[in-house]
């Protein structure tokens, strides 16, 4: 049990595979992504399997999930934003289930890898750009041109572009850092329990870090949900901006 707290984040190949010089092994990362998708699919398959007018437990959960995401979109981008319901819904539940599956002891947390969160954020930003161009044509580029006299504009446009790209980093790092920090903390306190438990007379003191694990565990549940929510809400806000282009100053 004397392992580094970072060992839990190691990507290990399960089925080694090399294609054209690239390492495309099936790893514990891929396995848990598949599990996440399977879990989400199973959850909603059960929720809609026997629809009744008065919903049962599973159907209720499914309906609450739908309402929750629909309200989230309505409150940030109005009814027009509901076009993006499938997109936001998918992202929200992928992140939510990754976070929660990761909380199971021994499980791998997909969202604790910056590659995964960065890819998700890149997907969101690319969608925003594509939607912006589709809706407004080249008028979308006005997003980067604030109202200012021309002699200062050449300086402001690069600043606006950097400011826009900042979202890519903040969206991905926020989720990744929260998951990484939380899981590292849990592992560190678990290490304290083991170390103290083996310390002879001091062994009863091991209860203290154990209690901490319980509290941090509860906190991590909150963080797991909150970060999925934040990711989805920010997706909605950015999409809303691409839809309506009202300058965000």
């Amino acid at each position, binding site marked *: 049990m004397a392992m580094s707290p970072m060992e839990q984040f190691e990507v290990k190949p399960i089925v080694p595979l090399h294609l054209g010089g690239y390492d495309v092994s099936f790893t514990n990362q891929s396995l848990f992504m598949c599990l996440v998708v399977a879990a989400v699919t199973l959850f909603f398959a059960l929720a809609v399997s026997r629809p009744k007018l008065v919903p049962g437990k599973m159907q209720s959960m499914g309906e609450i999930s739908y309402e929750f995401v629909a309200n989230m979109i309505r409150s940030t981008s109005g009814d027009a934003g509901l076009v993006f319901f499938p997109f936001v819904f998918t992202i929200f539940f992928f992140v939510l289930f990754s976070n929660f599956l990761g909380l199971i002891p021994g499980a791998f947390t997909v969202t604790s890898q910056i590659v995964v969160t960065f890819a998700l954020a890149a997907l969101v930003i690319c969608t925003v750009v594509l939607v912006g161009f589709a809706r407004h044509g080249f008028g979308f580029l006005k997003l980067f041109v604030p109202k200012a006299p021309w002699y200062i504009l050449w300086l402001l446009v690069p600043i*606006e572009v*950097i*400011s826009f790209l*900042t979202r890519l980093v*903040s969206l991905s*790092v*926020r989720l990744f850092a929260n998951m990484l920090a939380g899981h590292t903390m849990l592992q560190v306190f678990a290490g304290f329990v083991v170390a103290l438990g083996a310390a002879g007379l001091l062994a009863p003191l091991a209860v203290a870090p154990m209690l901490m694990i319980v509290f941090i565990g509860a906190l991590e549940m909150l963080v797991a949900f909150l970060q999925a929510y934040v990711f989805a809400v920010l997706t909605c806000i950015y999409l809303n901006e691409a839809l309506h282009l009202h300058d965000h100053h």
Partner: protein
Amino acid sequence: MPSPEQDDLKRLGERIDEADRRQNEREAAPPPSAWGIAIRFAAEMVMALVVGGGLGWGIDWAFEHWASVQTRPWGLVVFVLLGAAAGIRNVLRAAKEINAAEAAKE
């Protein structure tokens, strides 16, 4: 004179409205704590610097790699400064947002 059923229905309607109102109040986001605001500002600033620095580094690398033009370290220098400017702009924007949210609540 309304029948007792209509009266009951009306009262039920009022109770539902009241419960709805309280529910909405409870679900309204709590105001961000001072700690939360501080973290947000710091994050906005650092992110912009990182993105600016990354872009500058990338541009230097691209010029050297593809055009064999030695621009290093000027891309990095210029873009870190632009990143700092973008960071300050982001922080001001965030502050405006938070102030607007506070003002809307009162």
